C-alpha cells in the first residue's frame, strides 16, 4: 500500500534498531535503570502493540503508555450522564463507536441501547447533524470527546448548525486539552519520565510551540511522532539522541503532517466555539485545572448540559481499579490487581480495558508475549 508500506519496511526498522542500541550504550542512566519514555497518545500505544515494537526495543527502554486516549480517561460520572441523556425520551444519542462499551456506574451506552435507548454510532459530528436534519421531531445529542484532534470538527459542526438554524441538535461536550495534562503528569511526584513521544495528530492542530515548557521548564526532551512503526522507531531514536547529547528540545519527526504553527483555521474555529473549563475530571488522574473545554455562552443553545438535566455526579472509580497508576506509568497493566481477572475486555471495570488505544486492552490483546518474557526473566 503506497504511502504506508514505506513506513513499515523491516530493513529500515532493523537499521533504526541498530542505531537505537548504539545510542543506549552511550547513555549513562541505562547502566542503573531503564529509561522511561512516555508515548502520550493512544494512537502510538496502538501502533506499538500492533507491530510488536515494544519487544523489539532493548530492555533498557521502558515505554510508559500515557493518558492520550480520550475514551480511557473519561470518568464514570460522565458516562452516567451519557446514559441519562440517551435515555431521555425523544433523544437520539450519537456517539463514536469506541465510547459505546465504556462502563458507567450502572451501565454502558451499549447496555442502554439494549434497554431501548436510541443510541447511534457515527463517524463524524457532521453525521450527527445529518441525523438532526433527518429527524426534526427528535432531539439529537452528539457525544463530543477527544483532544484537540477532534475538537475542530465538533466546532465546525456547531457553526454549521448555527448557520442552518438547526434547533434540535446539541453537544454533550467532553473535549479535553493536552497541555495541562502533560503538565499535571510532570508535576506528579510519582512520575519519573526521561522523555516523551509527542502526540502527532493533536500537534497537527496546535503546532509544536505549546510544548516548549516541557524542554524549557521541566528539562525533558520531546519528539512529536507519527503513527507508523518507522515513525515511532525514528522518534524513539531522536529522543535517545537528545538524551545522549544532553539536549532537551521539542523536535518534530512528523513534519510531513505537523506544521510548527499548527492549523490556524482549525484553531480559530475552536477558539470561536469553545472556552476552557476551570477544571475537568479525568478517570484515574482526578481533577486537572483548565484541562477541559465547554461551549461559549454564545452557543449555549447547543449545550446538552444546559438543554437537558444530567445527574452530573462525581462517581469514584471502583476501588479495585488501578487505572490511575497505569495511566501514570507507576504500574504496568498486568500488575493491576484486577487485570485479566475481574477486568477483562468482556467485562471491563476501567476504560483502559475497553478502547483499542487503552494500555490494558492492548496488553490483553497483543502483549502477552512481552509479559511472558518479563515474567520469565523475573523468575
Amino acid at each position, binding site marked *: *500500500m503506497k504511502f*504506508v508500506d514505506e513506513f*513499515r519496511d*523491516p530493513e529500515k*526498522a*532493523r537499521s533504526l534498531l541498530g542505531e537505537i542500541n548504539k545510542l543506549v550504550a552511550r547513555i549513562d542512566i541505562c547502566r542503573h535503570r531503564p529509561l522511561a519514555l512516555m508515548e502520550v497518545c*493512544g*494512537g502510538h500505544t*496502538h501502533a506499538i*502493540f*500492533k*507491530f*510488536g*515494537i*515494544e*519487544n*523489539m526495543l532493548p530492555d533498557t527502554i521502558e515505554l510508559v503508555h500515557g493518558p492520550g486516549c*480520550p*475514551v480511557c480517561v473519561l470518568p464514570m460520572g460522565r458516562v452516567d450522564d451519557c446514559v441519562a441523556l440517551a435515555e431521555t425520551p425523544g433523544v437520539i444519542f450519537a456517539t*463514536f*463507536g*469506541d*465510547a*459505546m*462499551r465504556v462502563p458507567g456506574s450502572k451501565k454502558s451506552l451499549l447496555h442502554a441501547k439494549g434497554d431501548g435507548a436510541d443510541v447511534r*454510532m457515527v*463517524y463524524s459530528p457532521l*453525521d450527527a447533524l445529518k441525523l438532526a436534519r433527518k429527524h426534526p421531531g427528535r432531539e439529537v445529542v452528539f457525544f463530543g*470527546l*477527544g*483532544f484537540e*484532534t*477532534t475538537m475542530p470538527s465538533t466546532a465546525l459542526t456547531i457553526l454549521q448548525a448555527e448557520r442552518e438554524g438547526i434547533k434540535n441538535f446539541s453537544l454533550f461536550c467532553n473535549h479535553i486539552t493536552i497541555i495541562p495534562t502533560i503538565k499535571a503528569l510532570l508535576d506528579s511526584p510519582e512520575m519519573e519520565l526521561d522523555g516523551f513521544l509527542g502526540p502527532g*495528530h493533536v500537534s497537527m492542530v496546535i503546532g509544536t510551540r505549546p510544548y516548549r515548557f516541557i524542554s524549557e521548564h521541566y528539562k525533558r526532551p520531546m519528539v512529536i511522532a507519527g503513527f507508523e*512503526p*518507522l515513525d515511532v522507531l525514528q522518534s524513539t531514536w531522536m529522543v535517545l539522541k537528545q538524551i545522549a547529547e544532553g539536549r532537551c528540545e521539542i523536535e518534530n519527526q512528523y513534519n510531513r503532517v505537523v506544521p510548527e504553527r499548527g492549523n490556524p483555521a482549525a484553531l480559530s474555529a475552536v477558539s470561536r466555539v469553545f472556552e476552557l473549563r476551570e477544571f475537568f475530571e479525568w478517570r484515574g488522574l482526578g481533577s486537572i485545572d483548565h484541562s477541559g473545554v465547554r461551549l461559549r455562552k454564545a452557543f449555549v443553545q447547543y449545550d446538552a448540559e444546559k438543554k437537558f438535566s444530567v445527574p452530573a455526579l462525581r462517581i469514584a472509580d471502583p476501588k479495585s481499579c488501578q487505572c490511575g497508576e497505569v495511566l501514570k506509568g507507576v504500574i504496568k497493566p498486568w500488575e493491576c490487581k484486577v487485570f485479566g481477572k475481574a477486568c477483562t*475486555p*468482556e467485562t471491563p471495570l476501567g476504560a483502559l480495558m475497553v*478502547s*483499542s*488505544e487503552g494500555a490494558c486492552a492492548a496488553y*490483553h*490483546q*497483543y*502483549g*502477552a*508475549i512481552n509479559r511472558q518474557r518479563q515474567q520469565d526473566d523475573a523468575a
Partner: protein
Amino acid sequence: MTLLFNSTKAFATGRRRGTISVPTITLAHGGGGSAMRNLIDDVFVTAFDNPSLDLLEDQARFALADLARLGDRLAFTTDSYVVDPLFFPGGDIGKLAVCGTINDLAVGGAVPLYLTCSVIIEEGLKVDTLRTVAKSMAAAAADAGVQIVTGDTKVVQKGTCDKLFLNTAGVGIIREGLDLGACRCGPGDAVLVNGLLGDHGAAILAARGDMELATAIESDCAALHGLVGYLLKAAPGTRFIRDATRGGLATVLNEAARASNVGIKIMEAATPMREEVKAFCEILGLDPLYLANEGKIICVVPDNEEHAALEAMRAHPLGGQAAVIGRVTDDYPGRVVMDTVLGGQRIVDMLVGDQLPRIC
C-alpha cells in the same frame, strides 16, 4: 426443529401454480391462506423447481440407501442470514444463504446435497425483491449441484425484522475414513488459506454507505465444496478445515489453537490481502485479520502434504491465490502469534464483539 418442519410447503406438479398480482408483501402473505399459497408458488416453487418440492408434503424425504452409497455419516447444519444491505457487490442475501450453508457442510468434508429455505419477511417488502433473492438462491444452488427441497414462509409486522431474514439448513454426506477436526492440529503442520482475505467484510461495510468510501471491493461469496474436494484428494491427511466467516482468520486460528492446545504462528507478510482491503482497514481503524470472508477456507495439513495441498488449491478457480501463511508450533499453547511485517511479534487474540473504529 419447528422452524424446519412446520407450516406451509410447496405444491405438486400438475396443479396450476398460483401467481401473485400485488407489488408488495403484506401480513396476508404469511397468513396461511391463498395469498401465501400464491406467494410461495409464484416466487419459491417457480425458482427452486425440483421433484422433492413437488411431493407436497410437510417434509422432504430421502431414501437412506441412496445416501449410504455416498458415505457413512450424515452432516447436518443450519445458518441464518441477516445481512444488510440485501444486495451488495459480489452477491446478495440469497447467494450468501446457499453458499454459506454449503460451506459449513463442505469444511467438515461432507458432500452437500440438500438445503432448506426458511424466510422471515418484513411486511412492505417488494415482491420483486423477494423474487430476485429466490432466483439468486436457485442459481447458486444449481451452480453448486444442490437442491432446495423444503421451506417455510413467515411475514412479520413492519419494524419487527429488517426487510428479509433467511435461514438455510443443509445435509450432506461424509465418506468413510475422513475425519476433520479443530482438535487434530499438531506441531509442524502447515496452515494454508485459499486466497485473498477480508473482501466480504470490506464490501459489506462499504456497501452500507455509512462511511461514504467508494471502493471496487466485491464480496468473495462462493460455494467451496469443489475446492475442498480438490484439497482432500491431494492432501488426504488434512487435519482441519474451517471457513473464515464472522471473526475472520484470527478467530478460526484461535479456535484451532485452543481445541488442539497448540500454538499457531503466522506471518503477516505471507497473509494474502488485496491492497484496497488493507487501505480500507487503515482508514477505518479495522484489523483485516478479523474481517469476514464468505469464500475462504483456512486449512491445516501435515508438513509432508503442504506442497500437494497448495498446488491442489491453486489449480482450482477459487484457490488461485492460495498461500501457506503459518505453522503449528509447540510454543504458546492455545495462542496465535504473528510475526509482524516490521519484524516484531504480537498475539492475535479473539475479539470480544464487533470491531469498533477508533476515533483518533
